[in-house]
């Protein structure tokens, strides 16, 4: 730079007096923008089709607030259970049963209760059938009241009287003028009815919205749900209606009188639930519901490492329920074996490729690449043909007489089959990085070593091999990471003992539909790969990984 800039103590200045850094940034900005514009299409594509779905999927491993979860579909229950201490061993109080009654009733009308059942079934077996049964049986509670009100006055079982009682006059007018095909007017509660019949009004509102938005049916024709009658009973029981003068005042006063009589039959919610299924009185069920009523859960992750939440805290599952630890260990172990066999098989091939004359090397390279041009399924199926008990290898061995016809080797549908097939399939991923590193090692190093007195072996081991290690590193990372998440080959040749964690993930994605658990397993797998990568960087140094050049 010029002398003047060195004399000033401040930042370096450009010729026009602006700070040099700013001038430089300005000069480079156009360049940077151009580069960004060039990669923008790919960046957007990757972001939208790859990063975002993966992030969403991984988020499912902790998310417990969607439809079909306790938090999402049974909000009243989740709220009510907050006050219940699950460790006391006492059943929750009536308020909780009340909340469950509403939640499951509404969920059943929306056909969501079975999904909550499935969600809880991951944590407590039997929940699925319990919720299905409860969804069917909850009407039994309401019908106790519904029948009695109906006996008193058949109007209690008609849509129109209820609409007149609950709806605002404006709404009622537009409802009466409604014709099929037009959009239904949104429901409005009549002024004062929320004070007069608070519970009834609340549940009727849910009923009304459901009929209008989901079913698109006229409230004038639809009799209300049985739970509305239960709430009506509760309101009548607690309220005073002597001064009521609104619509259907006679009906309401008569019903109020009926409720106050000794003959009026009532049923406690707890008893009603017991009648549906005794499981509702099991403290364990309530503990499970409370444990999974938060919007975020560690439950999927605990499940993925063979643990579960108990009232006493987090604990290992029963021995016969633990599978993921075994699967993770097996996946790691087999991936390492596959990587190691790939190294052993690929090194000599890559060495030959790098040291043969060009023509021969090209021919050999085609042979190496040949598997890439064949479908993965075809290759895997070919191994099935080769390895099975009536397969080519066994036939040859029997024909030669090495093994007896009754003692054919079991080489498929077990770990051996997976290791053989995957080693073959992943071999090119080891050979290519090794080759590209080895082809950059000039021959004069080995010559120099020999001229210095080293034998063939010493010059290979002390001079050539250390320089080829970056290729081994690159190949190993590639093969190991590919192997750890491999799905199709273990699925086909793995049988029971040769499957990977990825097969379990696929099962939860497509068969059991437990996406949360699949996401948790996937997250753990991803974390394991990242940790291994980090460890590799610390031990070997990622700078030592070369894919050529």
């Amino acid at each position, binding site marked *: 730079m010029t002398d003047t800039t060195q004399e000033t103590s401040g930042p370096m200045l450009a010729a026009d007096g602006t700070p040099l850094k700013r001038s430089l940034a300005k000069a480079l900005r156009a360049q940077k923008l151009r580069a960004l514009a060039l990669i923008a299409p790919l960046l957007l594509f990757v972001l939208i089709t790859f990063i975002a779905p993966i992030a969403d999927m991984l988020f499912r491993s902790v998310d417990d607030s969607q439809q079909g979860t306790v938090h999402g579909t049974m909000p009243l229950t989740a709220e009510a259970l907050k006050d219940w201490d699950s460790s006391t061993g006492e059943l929750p109080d009536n308020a909780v049963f009340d909340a469950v009654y509403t939640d499951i009733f509404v969920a059943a009308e929306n056909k969501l209760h079975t999904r909550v059942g499935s969600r809880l079934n991951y944590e407590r077996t039997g929940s699925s059938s319990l919720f299905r049964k409860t969804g069917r049986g909850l009407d039994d509670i309401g019908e106790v009241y519904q029948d009695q009100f109906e006996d008193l006055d058949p109007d209690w079982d008609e849509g129109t009287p209820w609409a007149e009682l609950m709806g605002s006059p404006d709404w009622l007018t537009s409802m009466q003028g409604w014709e099929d095909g037009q959009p239904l007017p949104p429901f409005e509660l009549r002024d004062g009815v929320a004070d007069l019949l608070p519970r009834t009004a609340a549940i009727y509102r849910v009923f009304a919205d459901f009929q209008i938005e989901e079913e698109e049916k006229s409230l004038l024709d639809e009799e209300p749900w049985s739970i509305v009658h239960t709430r009506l009973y509760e309101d009548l029981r607690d309220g005073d209606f002597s001064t009521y003068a609104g619509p259907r005042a006679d009906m309401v006063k008569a019903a109020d009188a009926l409720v106050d009589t000794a003959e009026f039959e009532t049923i406690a919610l707890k008893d009603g639930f017991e009648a549906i299924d005794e499981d509702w009185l099991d403290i364990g069920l309530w503990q499970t519901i409370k444990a999974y009523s938060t919007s975020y859960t560690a439950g999927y992750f605990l499940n993925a490492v063979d643990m579960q939440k108990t009232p006493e805290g987090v604990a290992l599952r029963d021995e016969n329920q633990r599978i993921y630890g075994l699967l993770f260990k097996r996946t790691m172990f087999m991936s390492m074996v596959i990587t190691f066999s790939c190294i052993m098989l690929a090194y000599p091939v890559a060495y030959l490729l790098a040291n043969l004359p060009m023509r021969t090397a090209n021919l050999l390279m085609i042979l190496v690449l040949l598997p890439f041009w064949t479908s993965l399924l075809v290759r895997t199926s070919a191994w099935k043909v080769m390895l099975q008990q009536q397969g080519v290898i066994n036939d040859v061995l029997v024909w030669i007489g090495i093994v007896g016809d009754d003692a054919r080797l079991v080489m498929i549908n077990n770990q051996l089959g997976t290791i053989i097939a995957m080693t073959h399939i992943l071999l090119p991923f080891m050979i290519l990085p090794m080759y590209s590193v080895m082809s950059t090692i*000039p021959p004069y190093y080995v010559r120099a070593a020999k001229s210095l007195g080293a034998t063939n072996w010493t010059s290979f081991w002390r001079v050539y091999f250390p320089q080829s290690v970056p290729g081994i590193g690159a190949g190993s990372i590639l093969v190991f990471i590919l192997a750890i998440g491999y799905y199709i080959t273990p699925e086909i040749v793995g049988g029971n003992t040769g499957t990977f964690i990825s097969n379990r993930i696929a099962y939860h994605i497509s068969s059991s539909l437990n996406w949360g658990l699949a996401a948790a397993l996937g997250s753990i797998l991803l974390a394991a790969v990242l940790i291994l990568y980090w460890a590799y960087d610390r031990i070997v140094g990622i700078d030592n990984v070369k894919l050529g050049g």
Partner: protein
Amino acid sequence: MADGSSGDAFVAFERVQKSYDGETLVVKDLNLSMPKGEFLTMLGPSGSGKTTCLMMLAGFETATYGEIKLDGVSINNIPPHKRGIGMVFQNYALFPHMTVAENLAFPLEVRKLGKSEREKKVKHALDMVQMGEFGGRRPAQLSGGQQQRIALARALVFEPELVLMDEPLGALDKQLREHMQFEITNLAHQLGITVVYVTHDQTEALTMSDRVAVFNDGRIQQLAPPDELYEKPQNSFVAQFIGENNTLEGVVKEISGNTCVVQLDDGEVLDATPVNVTKVGERTRVSIRPERVEFNKERLKDGVHTLKAEVLEFIYMGDIFRTRLRVAGKDDFVIKTRNAPDQVRLEPGSQIEIGWLPEDCRALDAG
């Protein structure tokens, strides 16, 4: 031509031939013998077979025919690592994954020397090339010249009697190269080692060697000390390859003992020393060094023939003047004169007469 006797030679090539493809010979009937302690340079254009000879001596190539002897023993069937020959490669070939000290210790380690002895020798070798401070560095952290010194030290550390160098200074810049030339010759003489040095740089060959073998087309064209090579080239290839040279073509007109008269194609005649010509009427190519051409008539001997010349160009080169002339129809005739106070600066366009001593002008083969 080459010295074929190999009685007490340290290194000897005897009728060595080499072919890679079975059709053409890269090295044709090579005979060469070197006494102990000699610094011999193999000089030649690329593809002349010089590197192949070196590789055969090192053991990385096998001779197709003939015998290579080291200290009287045939080494044809001895693998390279048992030959005990030090070698400096063109690209230094320092092991990049080892430090400088480890590189130097490598030949000692494979010879199973003890640790303390190893360290002593490594230190000594590093001091020898003035690189004592650099033992802990990696080769990539050194400059080209430093790497060159390390490569040299590594080739010498196990005290071989014969060291081969394959264009070791090719990658260095001019100044460093000249400095290293000096250092290498000094070291070689100091240690008394025998050196076979391959280069295509003739200045390097002339300044460093005891003897130079000029290779062309798989044969040694001339094997001689530098001064003889320069002043008395045996054939037109050597004359043209070594140093700058003016050539004129003509026919031998008279020949008598140590002198002959050559008639050029345009009819002019000149005096020369017959080298490859034996009889009158033979076509020849005469060669004369630019600095041996005389244009000052007073300094020429009486009776010698002179040629007419026209000055085409005068180039001032600092220490010398380089003047281009048209002689006998060719306009690439060059003379060099020292930049001395009384030196004449020839004017372009002027007509002069040039001549020389017959012994400076050599009548060679027609090429």
